[in-house]
């Protein structure tokens, strides 16, 4: 792999930019691998990269379409680790630490920008809850800072701080180390680095079945023939229910839609990530200048990747209520991703009842921020056959055991998240 650097760019420019080569190979699938990963999104590619780097095993990533074409390319790119439950803190803080060194690690600029992740509080009770979460975070060694109403107004001057505001602002809590990253670059960076370590990335190769003998998986059937494997990892969040179904499994997952929206690009107006304790709307500005908006899922099962118009109205209304200046902007695009909504809102990282068949999914609408940490722990699991300590709370068996990781504390229905 040719390293990317300012010097290489300059030297290539002098030669008329004829030095560029494909960032990864397009290999034919081999007949057998130590590990086959189903799904070429951020999590699958990160898993493959850490597997090849730390465990020196022969890995293939099978992707039915193109790399990062699912939820990796459809999210609102927010990265943070300020969760309340210790299990989520552990996994996401590990992930955030990996994010902090990721561009250097991969020799690929993932444009990770620690511009801060701000949660607004709209009432005394919101502020009490934010303070409680902030205390818990600081006890766990994760940065959190409670902000007064005045400090919030100074950080985001365009917020409606008037006494007639639709969502009155009492203050906030910020994680300064949070921020955004370039989502496509994460998939491409992991793919390029994994390929350089010998991982076979095979696109347009859909898994159509699993070879199971005596309760153990021995390989996969694909649109490009059979491929044998000692271990198989399913990393297809959004389609976990469907793919696990090919192995005869039922998961605590409903596939639902989450939409995102961008406005036309404008000059810098919001230089942090705005979220809220009470309003489910999040606002940030991309490097291109577009305002990126997200909101609630569509709250019924669907794989269609087409969102409901009424959600656009709801999110736009909330965003304009928080930042009235947004009412002047035109909406440029909207799109939807199919998410695995689980019965407690937390992911699933475990070995399935089929031996050697592992699954990493159920990321609900919060998977992007976890990409690095999820890949790290899943690589360890696929190499050793044992679930990593950080992933153990996210077992399939937690529902029967009553050990749910319910961050939102809203009970067992997937659409209630």
């Amino acid at each position, binding site marked *: 792999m040719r390293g990317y650097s300012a010097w290489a760019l300059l030297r290539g420019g002098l030669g008329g930019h004829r030095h560029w080569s494909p960032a990864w190979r397009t290999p034919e699938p081999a007949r057998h691998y130590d590990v086959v990963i189903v799904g070429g999104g951020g999590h699958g590619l990160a898993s493959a990269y850490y597997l090849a780097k730390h465990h020196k095993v022969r890995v293939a990533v099978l992707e039915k379409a193109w790399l990062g074409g699912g939820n990796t390319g459809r999210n609102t790119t927010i990265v943070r680790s300020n969760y309340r439950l210790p299990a989520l803190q552990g996994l996401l803080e590990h992930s955030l630490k990996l994010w902090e060194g990721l561009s250097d690690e991969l020799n690929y600029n993932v444009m990770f920008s620690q511009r801060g992740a701000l949660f607004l509080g709209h009432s005394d009770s919101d502020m009490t809850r934010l303070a409680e979460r902030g205390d818990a975070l600081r006890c766990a060694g994760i940065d959190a800072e409670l902000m007064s109403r005045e400090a919030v107004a100074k950080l985001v001057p365009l917020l409606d701080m008037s006494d007639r505001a639709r969502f009155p602002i009492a203050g906030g809590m910020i994680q300064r180390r949070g921020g955004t990253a370039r989502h496509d670059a994460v998939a491409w960076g992991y793919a390029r680095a994994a390929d350089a370590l010998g991982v076979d990335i095979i696109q347009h190769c859909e898994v159509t079945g699993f070879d199971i003998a005596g309760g153990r998986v021995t390989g996969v059937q694909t649109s490009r023939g059979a491929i044998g494997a000692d271990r198989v990892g399913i990393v297809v969040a959004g*389609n976990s*229910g*469907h793919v696990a*179904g090919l192995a005869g499994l*039922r*998961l*605590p*997952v*409903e*596939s639902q839609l989450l939409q995102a929206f961008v406005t036309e690009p404008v000059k810098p107006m919001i230089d942090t990530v705005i979220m809220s304790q009470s309003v489910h709307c999040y606002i940030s500005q991309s490097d291109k200048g577009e305002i990126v908006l997200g909101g609630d899922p569509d*709250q*019924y*099962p*669907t*794989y*269609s990747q*087409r969102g*409901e*118009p*009424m959600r656009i109205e709801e999110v736009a209304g909330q965003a304009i209520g928080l930042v009235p200046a947004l009412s002047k902007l035109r909406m440029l695009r909207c799109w939807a991703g199919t998410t695995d909504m689980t*019965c407690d809102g937390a992911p699933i990282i475990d070995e399935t009842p089929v031996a050697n068949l592992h699954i990493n999914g159920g990321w609900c609408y919060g998977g992007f921020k976890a990409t690095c940490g999820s890949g790290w722990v899943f690589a360890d699991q696929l190499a050793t056959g044992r679930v990593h300590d950080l992933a153990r709370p996210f077992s399939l068996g937690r*529902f*029967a055991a009553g050990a749910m990781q319910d961050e939102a504390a809203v009970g*067992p*229905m*997937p*659409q209630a998240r």
Partner: protein
Amino acid sequence: MFLIDCPHCGPRAQAEFVFERPVETIFSVDTPTAELVEKLYTRTNPRGVSAELWRHARGCRAWLRIDRHTVTHVIIAVALWNPAP
């Protein structure tokens, strides 16, 4: 967004309705624990036709069984919910 043909109210916008749960997850109070956990916490989650319980929350408030395709959103059947079919 789609239209749902409510047996009481006729075709109405989906926005008036609330998805409740897949029919397969409905259980009675005397269900044995193991089966109850299975019903409450697992889903077939088909990429295809799904039988679902919806509610006309902003209309007549009737509970409806809707058979619906989860990719195309084509509705195959709508009927008033009958808990003992």
